[in-house]
């Protein structure tokens, strides 16, 4: 009988836990450790952030779902991993600190036979002075609570616009190494839609400030589309939308600091600039959730398991090499941790071998390069793959082969709503196959048949459908496993 522990209950960890509960024979245990009591469908935080959805529409409590599925839920944050056990036992263990009000601060050591690290991102607002809602001067949509605050700030801005004041709104990335450009892209066009709906767009200056060197990069090095017999780019496609909606773009920017009403940033030419703003939604860079690792005798072995970024090292090729030598094969397939065949790291928690977008530095040496996105569809697939590998180990023994799902062979959809309403909504909907370009296989890096971008009402319906489908799936309602990740 095996004890499986899943750290994190986001898209990846929650998916892994649900599949484990389905795949493991009875008698085995699944324990989920998460500091949050609620599951959040993060893509819909965008709609909360403009006031079109309530927080309660994008979150639900985890405990009842886990109770129904026979999963033990520990509301706590993991602080340390003992992959070879400790002085008392050779069985692996994780140290956790409880976060629920009733048991806050309580520490315990949980033993495991198999571990899935799906701890997600640490939101590093601290990397940029003045960034973020916790004592900073900008809002965020990274969590449902952040999005509620963002909606209130946006409402206040719209009221000032209605009163006749001119306002500048800046949306984008709060650091040169941020990821999730798609979320900022989506938010800026939702804000545009809100301003138009309120009849105040003409008094508002709307600026998208990003670390992408080109529009349409999205942290995946952009895309090539085939349209009407021509190859075109996501840069041209995105640029068209920006021009049509009158959204200004500042590209290749690293935010140095945010002061009240002023964002100071450096561009790739090394020059420093400032932009005055009245409303700012700037996303933070991500880091790994701080976790230490210890050997049995208490010696710290954190660098063995984790990259300096805090993300866990898995079956990727981490050899440093120039952009021209990056290969699809560098990317992990099984997400099994380096040196430990009973630990997996999935979703944002695994250390990517390198960026996907071309890495760039400013003339001053400042890194201004999007980090690789590994959220949403790929994140769920990784969680499922880890669960399947573990279930096979339990059922067939230690020689069972790992299941695989490389981001260099896996597709993803990015649906960025640019307005809402069943008859009036719109979305920029993209699909890419694969996420990580494979230039050995495809001349443009991706399969042109599946790499597409389109704008229209249908995209809005897709986004709405995904909202309801994934909430249904995450609640483990009947037939949940039939909905693909």
């Amino acid at each position, binding site marked *: 009988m095996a004890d499986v522990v899943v750290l994190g209950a986001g898209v990846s960890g929650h998916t892994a836990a649900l599949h484990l509960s389905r795949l493991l024979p009875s008698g085995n245990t699944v324990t989920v450790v998460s500091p949050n009591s609620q599951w959040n469908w993060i893509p819909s935080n965008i709609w909360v952030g403009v006031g079109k959805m309530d927080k309660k529409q994008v979150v639900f409590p985890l405990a009842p779902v886990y109770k129904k599925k026979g999963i033990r839920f520990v509301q706590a944050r993991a602080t340390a991993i003992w992959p070879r056990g400790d002085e008392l036992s050779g069985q692996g263990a994780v140290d956790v600190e409880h976060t629920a009000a009733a048991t806050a601060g309580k520490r315990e050591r949980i033993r495991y036979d198999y571990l899935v690290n799906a701890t997600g991102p640490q939101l590093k607002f601290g990397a940029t002075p003045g960034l973020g809602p916790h004592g900073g001067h900008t809002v965020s949509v990274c969590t449902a609570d952040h999005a509620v605050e963002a909606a209130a700030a946006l409402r206040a801005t719209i009221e000032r616009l209605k009163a006749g004041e001119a306002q500048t709104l800046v949306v984008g990335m709060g650091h040169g190494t941020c990821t999730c450009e798609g979320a900022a892209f989506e938010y800026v066009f939702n804000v545009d839609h809100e301003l*138009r709906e309120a009849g105040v*767009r003409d008094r508002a200056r709307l600026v998208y400030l990003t670390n992408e060197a080109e529009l349409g990069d999205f942290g995946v090095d952009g895309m090539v589309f085939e349209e009407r017999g021509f190859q075109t780019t996501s840069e041209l496609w995105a640029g*068209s939308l*920006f021009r049509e909606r*009158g959204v200004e773009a500042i590209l290749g920017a690293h935010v140095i600091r945010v002061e009240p009403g002023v964002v100071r940033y450096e561009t790739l030419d090394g020059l420093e600039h400032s932009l005055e703003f009245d409303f700012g939604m700037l996303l933070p860079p991500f880091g790994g959730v701080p976790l230490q690792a210890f050997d049995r005798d208490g010696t710290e072995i954190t660098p063995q398991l984790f990259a300096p970024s805090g993300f866990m090292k898995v079956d990727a090729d981490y050899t440093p090499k120039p952009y021209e030598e990056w290969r699809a094969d560098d990317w992990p397939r099984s997400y099994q941790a380096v040196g430990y065949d009973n630990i997996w790291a999935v979703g944002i928690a695994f250390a990517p071998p390198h960026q996907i977008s071309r890495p760039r530095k400013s003339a001053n040496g400042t890194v201004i390069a999007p980090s690789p996105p590994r959220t949403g569809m790929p994140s769920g697939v990784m969680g499922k793959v880890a669960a399947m590998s573990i279930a096979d180990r339990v059922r067939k023994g230690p020689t069972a082969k790992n299941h695989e799902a490389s981001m260099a062979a896996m597709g993803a*959809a990015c649906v960025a709503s640019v307005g809402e309403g069943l008859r009036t909504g719109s979305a920029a909907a993209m699909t890419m*196959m694969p996420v990580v370009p494979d230039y050995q296989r495809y001349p443009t890096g991706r399969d042109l048949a599946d790499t597409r971008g389109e704008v*229209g009402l249908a995209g809005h319906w897709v986004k709405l459908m995904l909202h309801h489908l994934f909430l249904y799936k995450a609640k483990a309602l009947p037939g949940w496993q039939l909905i693909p990740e």
Partner: protein
Amino acid sequence: MSERVHEQQLRAPSGSTVADLSKAPLPTASTLRKRMSLPLQLTRFVVFNARIMRMVLKGHSQDH
């Protein structure tokens, strides 16, 4: 066109860090209509979902 009253040329002033998007293609009135056409968008909805399902079948499990 009221929906596009705020459309700008987005030509970057000299010395500005704002990207010059004045050459980005603008959708025609016909394209804008098609983006909101119910029958056409219903078809696009079906096609988009079919493409997602094809990607799921092709790439979500790469076991050999």
